[in-house]
């Protein structure tokens, strides 16, 4: 498993790296301040000794090698085994020295007493580390004081190791704790996965609980539920469609079977047989058309291909369709008017079919003596076609469903014309294939279908 594969691993690793960085920083700060503290302590000690020596040497007239002064200095410095003191007189003769280590010359050059305290220097001699300072006194002596700080260094060294150990162990503990924390933090995700794993076509009604879900996962859960809603809806339509299809096919086939059985039950004359065959033929024809329509829609579901996109003059097509349906419309005293124009890029035959189905639908549902109005507009780069008829009202809740396959406004109504119940579904899929959309409105008995279709943006196919 790569690190990027697991959120838990990634989070805990990041967590421990950050912890290690913080601990390291803190360690450095502590280490530096402890060191500073030691320096201050050494400075105070050195300055104290310095002042003591100066005080003893304050009398100008007493030479430094005087026994009494030597005694005084030794008394003052007794017990300080870490201390190194060298005192030279104005002529450069060493008049007093204690301690075993030498003081390097570059430490001894400072002339000013105040600067000496600031300019504390460090050096190494005989494997030991010293810190020291030097200056000339007003009485002509040159005093150099050093202090062995080896034990400080050893302490700091041990302290560094301790810091490293604490930091390392802390980081490791934080990594483990972080792993648990991340694991626990991700539990809602696992719960979601658990619920999701139980969802199947038979149990699409299951939903992720929205109430006690972390804010961060709310969007995910909501879109997941919305997806389930859509899937459920599609599945519902699909199963309705399947049962509708079975029903639509069963009825005519039942009729054919019954008719054939009854016809065969006793001998009849040739004319009767011919009539029966004709009646059967009508039924077969309708079945064949329904199957062809179904195939068309099945192909449309996989993305209808527009093979021959060519400029289509919509006014011309609408007028031609008006002429085609003229006779049928005239039977119901329905007239037809076409206004406006637009030229779009598309498949002429398919568009003819799409509009033709709308025409047939409009005539079928028009009241006697009404007028079907077709209006074609060009808005920006879109053609907008409206087909309006006065007649049977469609209930608002049924409007979006008119494009469903085998949809009937009145469920009890039997189909008594040649319609397959797929006309508007085919119209819709053709419009979709052209990158457009179609809507239906109904108001005061006026039913209006509005097609919006891009004029030029056709790119081969579309789902």
């Amino acid at each position, binding site marked *: 498993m790569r690190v990027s594969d697991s959120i838990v691993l990634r989070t805990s690793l990041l967590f421990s790296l950050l912890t290690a960085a913080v601990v390291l920083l803190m360690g450095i700060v502590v280490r530096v301040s402890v060191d500073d503290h030691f320096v201050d302590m050494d400075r105070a000690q050195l300055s104290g000794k310095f002042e003591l020596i100066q005080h003893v040497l304050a009398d100008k007239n007493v030479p430094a090698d005087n026994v009494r002064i030597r005694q005084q200095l030794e008394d003052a410095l007794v017990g300080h085994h870490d201390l190194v003191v060298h005192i030279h007189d104005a002529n450069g003769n060493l008049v007093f020295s204690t301690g075993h280590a030498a003081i390097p010359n570059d430490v001894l050059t400072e002339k000013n007493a105040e600067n000496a305290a600031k300019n504390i220097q460090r050096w190494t001699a005989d494997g030991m580390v010293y810190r020291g300072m030097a200056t000339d006194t007003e009485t002509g002596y040159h005093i150099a004081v050093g202090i062995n700080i080896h034990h400080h260094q050893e302490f700091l060294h041990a302290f560094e190791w301790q810091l490293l150990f604490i930091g390392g162990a802390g980081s490791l503990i934080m990594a483990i704790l972080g792993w648990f924390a991340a694991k626990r933090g991700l539990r809602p995700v696992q719960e979601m996965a658990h619920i999701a794993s139980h969802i199947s076509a038979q149990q699409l009604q299951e939903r992720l609980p929205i109430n006690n879900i972390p804010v961060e996962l709310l969007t995910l859960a909501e879109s997941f539920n919305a997806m389930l809603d859509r899937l459920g809806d599609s599945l519902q339509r699909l199963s309705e469609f399947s049962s509708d299809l079975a029903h639509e096919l069963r009825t005519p086939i039942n009729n054919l079977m019954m008719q054939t059985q009854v016809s065969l039950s006793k001998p009849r004359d040739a004319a009767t047989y011919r009539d029966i065959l004709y009646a059967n033929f*009508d039924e077969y024809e309708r079945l064949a058309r329904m199957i062809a329509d179904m195939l068309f829609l099945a192909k449309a579901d996989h993305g209808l291909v527009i093979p021959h996109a060519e400029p289509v003059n919509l006014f011309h097509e609408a007028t031609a369709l008006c002429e*085609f349906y003229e006779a049928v419309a005239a*039977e119901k005293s329905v007239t037809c008017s076409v206004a406006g124009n637009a030229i779009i890029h598309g498949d002429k035959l398919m568009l003819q079919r799409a509009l033709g189905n709308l025409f047939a639908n409009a005539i079928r549902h028009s009241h006697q003596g009404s007028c079907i109005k077709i209006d074609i507009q060009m808005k920006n780069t879109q053609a907008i076609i409206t087909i309006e008829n006065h007649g049977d009202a469609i209930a608002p809740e049924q409007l979006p469903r008119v494009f469903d396959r085998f949809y009937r406004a009145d469920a009890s109504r039997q189909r008594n014309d*040649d*319609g397959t119940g797929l006309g508007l579904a085919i119209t819709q899929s053709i419009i979709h294939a052209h990158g457009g959309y179609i809507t239906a409105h109904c108001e005061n008995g006026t039913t209006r279908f509005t097609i919006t279709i891009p004029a030029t943006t056709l790119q081969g196919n579309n789902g």
Partner: protein
Amino acid sequence: MKILLVEDESKTGSYLKQGLTEAGYLTDWVQDGLSGREYALTGDHDLLILDVMLPGLDGWQILTAVRHAGILTPVLFLTARDQVEDRVKGLELGADDYLVKPFAFAELLARVRTLLRRGHAREENMLQVADLELDLRRRRAMRAGQRIDLTAKEFALLELLMRRSGEVLPRSLIASQVWDMNFDSDTNVVEVAIKRLRNKVDANFSAQLIHTVRGMGYVLEADNARV
């Protein structure tokens, strides 16, 4: 008129052969691509009806061989797949027409007649069937000396029926020829149009000229031989 039918599905083939023979065509029927090619290259046929999917050679290969041999016999394709690519490929190879299965036999017959008529069309100014006359130049229809008022589409419909008098024309062919509507309309548009035309042409006369052939289509003819 001699027709070669290459169709491997035996039920379809035998019905088609029966139908074409009864329609007055001498029909050779073979069931595989290789004999289909042999017959097409050697036989003296006026029309080839080829299925696309065949054992041995497919319909396209037969067509290619036929056109390669310089034979220009009209070819009608039968295809079970209504893929546009099939349609385009067939037409590109030099087929004259195609029909998608399932199709109505009347449709096939009408197309066969159209293909066989090709090249035999005559320019006429006047069409006449019994006492019905159509003056194509002056766009006038007369029955027994009486003028009949027709709309432009009614005139076109009557012209089609008269030009192909005696032939049963299926509804889809009428829709395509008169209105240039090539989709399968689910309304009875042609039926209604024929009814209205019949009202104008036949209503006042005892001899009916326009007949409905159930399950097939419409025919205009003088004698009343058909049912």
